[in-house]
C-alpha cells in the first residue's frame, strides 16, 4: 500500500496544507516539538488505529472539539480516498470515498504497522500494553477476529453492569438464570478471543524467531507465550470465581486480564534485559508484526517508525536500512540532522511549526534512479 497524500484539519499543531509523501521511504526531519510525531500519529489514525502515544482524541484535537484527517492511498492499481473525522459529540467516523465505513474496514483498507518509543511497554509495561499489541496484530492478521473482540468487550460490559447491580443488593428472583446466561455468553466470546489470540501469537512467533536468529544468540533464545495456558477453561474459572465476583461487582477472569510472557531459556525476560536489548526486541517484534500482516493481507502494510534512529550507531543504522521494506510507504521520523543519512534513497520532509516542506527524493535523484529504487 502507498500513502500518496495526507491533509489534516484541527489536528494538534499540524497545518492544513497537503502533505505529499514520496513513493518509498520518507524521512520526516525537524527539531523536537515541530510536529513530526504528530504527522505520524495522523497517519496511524487514518489507518484505523489508535494513537501509539495513547493520546485521547480530545488531546489530539487542536480545539478539543473536533479534527479530521483525509488521505489518498494506492492499493494495487486503484486509488482510494479515506478519511477519519472525530468530534466530541459524534466520536470517530471513517469514510471511503465519502461513504461511511467501520474502523475495521478502514484498518483492512490501510494495513499499517507503527513503532514508537512508547512500544517498549510491550516488554516492560503492564499486561494491558501486551494485550493491545496482540489485538492490534490480530486485526491485521485476521480481520474477522475484530467482531469477536468487540463482542467480548460488549459482553464484559453487560456482565459487569449486572454484577455491580447484584453487589448493590439487586439480586432478584430471576438473577441466577440471568447471570448464568451472561456468564455463558461471555465465556463463549472469551474462548473465541483466546483462540484467535493464540493462533495470532503462533503466527507471530514463527516469524519472530526467524528474524531473531540473525540478530544474535541473546535474541534467538527469546520466546513469547500466552497466559493462561491452553488448559484453562473460562466457563469453569468464572463459575469458581462467582462468589468473589458478586462481592466485587465485576468480572475477574477472561481475555481482558490475560497476558503475554516474554522469556529467555524459559525464564521471564522482565528485569533481565537491558534497555538496549528491550529496544532491539521491540523493533524485531514490530518487524515481525509487519510481516505477519503483510502475509495475511496480501497487501504490503505501511510502516511508520517514530524517532527511528534514537540510540542507533552508524553500523546498526546500515543494518536498519537493509531490513526496511520496499514497495510500500515507509515513514521515519528523526530529530537528527538529515546529513546523518547521506546515501539513503528517501524523500525528505522538513517539519517546522506544523508545516512540511519537501526536498523531493534527494538521494534517489542523486543516484540518477527513479524514486525509491536505489538501495544503500
Amino acid at each position, binding site marked *: 500500500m502507498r500513502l500518496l497524500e495526507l491533509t489534516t484539519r484541527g489536528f494538534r499543531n499540524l497545518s492544513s496544507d497537503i502533505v505529499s509523501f514520496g513513493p518509498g521511504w520518507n524521512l520526516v526531519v525537524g527539531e523536537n516539538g515541530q510536529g513530526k510525531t504528530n504527522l505520524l500519529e495522523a497517519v496511524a489514525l487514518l489507518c484505523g488505529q489508535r494513537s501509539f502515544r495513547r493520546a485521547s482524541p480530545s488531546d489530539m484535537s487542536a480545539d478539543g472539539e473536533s479534527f479530521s484527517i483525509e488521505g489518498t492511498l494506492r492499493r494495487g492499481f486503484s486509488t482510494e480516498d479515506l478519511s477519519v473525522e472525530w468530534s466530541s459529540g459524534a466520536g470517530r467516523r471513517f469514510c471511503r470515498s465519502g461513504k461511511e465505513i467501520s474502523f475495521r474496514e478502514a484498518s483492512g483498507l490501510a494495513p499499517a504497522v507503527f513503532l514508537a518509543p512508547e512500544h517498549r511497554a510491550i516488554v516492560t509495561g503492564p499486561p494491558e500494553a501486551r494485550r493491545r499489541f496482540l489485538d492490534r496484530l490480530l486485526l491485521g492478521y485476521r480481520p474477522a477476529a475484530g467482531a469477536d473482540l468487540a*463482542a467480548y468487550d460488549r*459482553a464484559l460490559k*453487560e*456482565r459487569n453492569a449486572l454484577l455491580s447491580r447484584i453487589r448493590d443488593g439487586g439480586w*432478584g428472583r*430471576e438473577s441466577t438464570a440471568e447471570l*448464568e*446466561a*451472561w456468564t455463558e*455468553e461471555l465465556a463463549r466470546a472469551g474462548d473465541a478471543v483466546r483462540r484467535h489470540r493464540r493462533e495470532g501469537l503462533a503466527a507471530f512467533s514463527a516469524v519472530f524467531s526467524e528474524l531473531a536468529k540473525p540478530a544474535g544468540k541473546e535474541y534467538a533464545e527469546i520466546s513469547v507465550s500466552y497466559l493462561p495456558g491452553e488448559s484453562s477453561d473460562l466457563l469453569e474459572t468464572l463459575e469458581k470465581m462467582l462468589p468473589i465476583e458478586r462481592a466485587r461487582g465485576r468480572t475477574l477472569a477472561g481475555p481482558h486480564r490475560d497476558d503475554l510472557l516474554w522469556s529467555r531459556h524459559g525464564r521471564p525476560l522482565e528485569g533481565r534485559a537491558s534497555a538496549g536489548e528491550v529496544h532491539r526486541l521491540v523493533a524485531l517484534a514490530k518487524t515481525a508484526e509487519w510481516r505477519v500482516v503483510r502475509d495475511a493481507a496480501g497487501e504490503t502494510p505501511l510502516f511508520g517508525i517514530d524517532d527511528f534512529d534514537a540510540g542507533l550507531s552508524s553500523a546498526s543504522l546500515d543494518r536498519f536500512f537493509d531490513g526496511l521494506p520496499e514497495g510500500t510507504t515507509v515513514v521515519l521520523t528523526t530529530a537528527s540532522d538529515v546529513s546523518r543519512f547521506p546515501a539513503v534513497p528517501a524523500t525528505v520532509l522538513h517539519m517546522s511549526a506544523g508545516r512540511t516542506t519537501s526536498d523531493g527524493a534527494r538521494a534517489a535523484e542523486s543516484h540518477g534512479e527513479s524514486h525509491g529504487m536505489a538501495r544503500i
Partner: protein
Amino acid sequence: MRLKGFDRLVSEFQRLPGIGAKSAARLAYFLLRAPREEADRLSQAISESREAVRRCSVCNTLTETDPCEICSEPERDSTLLCVVEEPGNVAAIEKTREFRGRYHVLWGALSPLKGIGPEEIDVAGLIRRVTPEVREVVLATNPNVEGETTALYIARRLKPTGVRVTRIAFGLPVGGDIEYADEVTMARSLENRREL
C-alpha cells in the same frame, strides 16, 4: 430570533431512533416549508395510528385487530413458536414464507447496561404460552451479544418444560440485526436452526 415552535419540533424529531440534530432540523424545515396539509396529514397519521394500533394480547406484535392477523389464522401451526425481539422481525420472517408457526414478540433483549432484565421483556408471557401442545420454540433474537444472551436465558428458563428449543443459524455477521437480513439469508437461517 428563537423560534420556540421550531425548536420544539426539532427536539421531538431528535428523540426518534436514528435521527441526529441535522436530520431533525431538515425534517422540521421540510414540514414548515411544505403546504399546511402535508403537516396535518402527518400529525393525523401519527395520532390515528396510536389510536388504531396496539399490542396483540397473544403474541405482543403490533396490530389493529386483537388478536392479530397471524394469531387469528386457524391454519397456523400452533406447535411451533418463534421468539423475536421486535415486531419488525415478524415481518422479516414472514417475507421468507418459510415459517408457518406462531410468534412471540419480546419487545427487546436483555441488557443490564440499559437496565433491561428479564422482567422488562416479556419472558413471563412466553413461558405461559409454552403449553404441552408446543413442540418447538425457535429463538430468532438478533445475532449480537444481547440477542444471544437472551436466547441462552430463555433456553434455561424453558428447560423444565422439556420443550425442544432451537436457535436460528445466522449466515449474518456477528453483531448484525435480523431486520436487515435479506429473504434468502433469513430463510436459510431458519432452515439451519440448531438445538440449544
